[in-house]
């Protein structure tokens, strides 16, 4: 596809942005606009599809083709878009309710089929648009309007769910980290197949500080690890901590320079390993015992649905004697009445 020079501003529409002041979605859209400008694909090649929820207003604020659809169905509509026209760059924006509750079925099947598109999952662990009910990612025990005594259901971890659905690409970022979000969005778009990008998002009104255990200034260096393929899994303010496999097979946090641990002992991130075992452990790391994994955690090549569909069509067209409807109408058992 031809490349065109853009700035982030070229992707802003003329619509007034109506998210609450301080909402994480502002930062996320800035990151996406930055990523799209840097990717430099023609503006008209983008189809941005969303469902329903605060973040699903996204397409209206983008100066591209966009379709704000119905609750939970963005993955299905986006799958139709991509399979009908493979030349488009398809980007889905959904919240945790849209993608994982009402749209949970479409979410897992999108990933399983590996349609070549990118899904940005804005995870604020709450229903914002309906004013504060718990979502499938709300932490156990959280008090919300529909769980005044605390939630009693186990939340989904979007990364774990994606890998369970045979995800080939999963990345994670945080709303406030515009550079990292733009970086993983770009990597997701360039990945061939369904790319799931979870962005930990803050809802200032109904779930303020929901990610503060990992985003607080004093804590973030110790509670976040940005993974990059081929690099060691090192983190901490002084870059003195790392991840290592324990003898029992699980990950442990170790300190470099202590107990004889050297940098050589720290695991090297292999995002391209088809075996999801390590990726599964990485997406499941939770604060405060572990740093939360950010960056591209899994990035594996596999055939995509849309490319396989096109291949089947090309093969059938080359082989079949039926080239048009008249051929079909007159094929098989027919007889003449004279």
């Amino acid at each position, binding site marked *: 596809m031809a490349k065109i020079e853009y700035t982030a501003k070229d992707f802003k529409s003329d619509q007034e942005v109506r998210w609450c002041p301080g909402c994480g979605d502002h930062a996320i859209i800035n990151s996406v606009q930055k990523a799209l400008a840097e990717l430099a694909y023609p503006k*008209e090649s983008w189809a941005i599809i969303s469902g329903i929820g605060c973040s699903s207003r996204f397409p*209206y604020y*983008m100066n591209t083709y*966009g379709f704000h659809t119905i609750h939970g169905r963005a993955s299905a509509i*986006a799958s*139709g878009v991509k399979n009908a026209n493979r030349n*488009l760059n398809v980007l889905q924006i959904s919240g945790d309710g849209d993608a994982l509750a009402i749209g949970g079925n479409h979410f897992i*099947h999108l990933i399983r089929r590996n349609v070549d598109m990118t899904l940005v999952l804005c995870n604020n662990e709450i229903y914002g648009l309906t004013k504060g009910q718990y979502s499938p990612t709300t932490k156990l025990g959280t008090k919300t309007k529909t769980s005044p005594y605390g939630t009693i259901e186990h939340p989904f971890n979007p990364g774990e769910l994606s890998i369970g659905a045979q995800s080939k690409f999963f990345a994670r970022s945080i709303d406030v980290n515009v550079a990292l979000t733009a970086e993983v969005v770009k990597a997701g778009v360039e990945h061939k197949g369904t790319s799931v990008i979870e962005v930990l998002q803050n809802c200032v009104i109904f779930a303020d500080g929901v990610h503060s255990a990992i985003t607080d200034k004093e804590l973030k260096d110790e509670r976040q690890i940005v993974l990059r393929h081929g690099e060691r899994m090192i983190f901490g303010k002084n870059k003195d901590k790392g991840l290592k496999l324990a003898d029992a097979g699980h990950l442990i946090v170790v300190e470099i320079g202590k107990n004889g641990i050297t940098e050589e002992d720290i695991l090297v991130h292999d995002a391209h390993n088809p075996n999801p075992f390590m990726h599964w452990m990485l997406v499941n790391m939770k604060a405060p015992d572990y740093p939360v994994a950010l960056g591209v955690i899994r990035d594996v090549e596999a055939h995509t649905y849309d490319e396989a569909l096109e291949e089947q069509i090309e093969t059938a067209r080359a082989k079949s004697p039926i080239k048009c409807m008249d051929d*079909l109408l007159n094929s098989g058992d027919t007889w*003449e009445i004279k």
Partner: protein
Amino acid sequence: MSQESMIIEKQDVVIRFSGDSGDGMQLTGQQFSDTSALFGNDVSTFPDYPAEIRAPQGTVGGVSGFQVHIGENHITTPGDYADVLVAMNPAALKANLRWVKKSGTLIVDTDSFTDKNLEKAGYTSNPLEDHSITEYNLVSVNITKLTQEALKDSNLDQKSVLRSKNMFALGITYWMFERSIEHTEEFFNTKFCNKPTVAEANKLVLQAGYNYASNVHALAVHFKVKPADIKKGKYRNITGNKATAWGLMAAAEKAGLNLFCGSYPITPATEILHELALRKDLKVKSYQAEDEIAGICTAIGASYVGNLAVTTTSGPGLALKTEACGLAIMAELPLVIVDVQRGGPSTGLPTKTEQSDLLQALYGRNGESPMPVVAASTPANCFDYAFKAAKIALEHVTPVILLTDGFLANGAQPWLIPAMKDLPEIKPKIAPEGEGYQPYARDPETLARFWALPGTKGMEHRIGGLEKMDITGAISYVPENHQVMTDLRDEKVKRIANYITKQEVFGNDNGGKILVVGWGGTYGHLYSAVKELRAEGKNVSLAHFNYINPLPLNTKDIFSKFEKIIVCELNLGQFAAYLRTQMPEFNYYQYNKVAGLPFTIEEIKNKINTL
């Protein structure tokens, strides 16, 4: 039994093949139908099978049937009652005897009338021996033993041997109707080209059945049905579902668009998806979605980027698609939603026919959400109405519901093959390229908005399910604008009436005493009943509707010319209720049936005679 068989010349004959659901009765009936069509008869067929693929063997619930109506005149229904019944076991006899004409012929496999099978079928004594069926012409044949005998030198296992006994029965009927076995032999040569032993066995048993009937002259009757005097040309057999699939494909080709079908398997609509999945050679993209909702949503996505998009389903699936139908209405995107109706509510009678989704199609959505509704009325014209539904969708930029039903979907008839050049043009409303595109600017005649396809430079725009500002398409909560947009969506559908054909009347064009009104799949039965009544001198006419919403413009004019109007449909009166809202000035009599079965011609005639 006489030594010489009696030859009966008939204008039309109905034959019903019935047996256990694993006995191959569908194939047997289809072969008889194809052979008769090749012979030159007009043909109409209808399969009748249980919802369970392998229902308990030998029980009445597990009986599978296939009815074929052949004739030398125009045949419009598979026939009410059978002249000949082939019953492969006691359950088949029990289940089907009520559908056989008195003095009709029964061909039964006596070997299957064992105590165990009689008990399973619910017989307390053997009907072949207890004189309970003496008013029929009973032909008892040891079909199982004769099949085993015919294949005694083959290397086939016992199970495979027994599986070919349906061919013995078919051989008997071929002799009985003076049909050649050649077509079926060819069929086996092709079907089992990689299994010559199986092909040979089936052909051997078919020939054995034919020879048996010919040699023993045991069959008291021998039917002659002359070829029909039908329009010259090239024909093929087609089922309603196949015709629907092909009509959609023809529309895509005519419109110069790719066809995309997002669907989820559901009885009795699934064959449409099968047929579309086969046609990758014509660039059809079929997408088996994870559920009904994803079926329509993928289609909406495909429509958004410029495909002729369709989704196919039955009543329960249409219910699941409801919200997405509303999105297609709001976003004003072309889409064809095919509902092959079945018995409802809920899971209902999946394999049986009914017309009870009409009100769901017309009104089953939130908000003011008008949608055009079109209904096919014969298996073959599913092609025409699928094509027309697509034409309306693309030219008026709207979702359209096409209603067929289980009877049309599975029924088959010979079809004069159309030439693509003779089909009407379809001109999708694609926005001309250039600056200044307004997503909700409209064609002043049709009120259709223009379709700007993603990928086109300079026409980037946003659409969605929220109410849109007139012309610009920006989100709008302005009260006056919502009124304007609601009225526009309503008027857009109403104006389609200016583009559809006028309603025709069979019978007295200038009015008369009784007007029978029907819609959709009941056409064959209503037409035959009205035709017979007219032949008996009764002043009765038929207006059978294919365009439901909007109705043809001359509907009121037609209704005003008749003394009595009776609306006949396979539900509790949904079309009648709709007509009452559209034209309350008329009095509508009703005739309704909700038995999972088509009307019989006889019952319609009886009802009309009471008016």
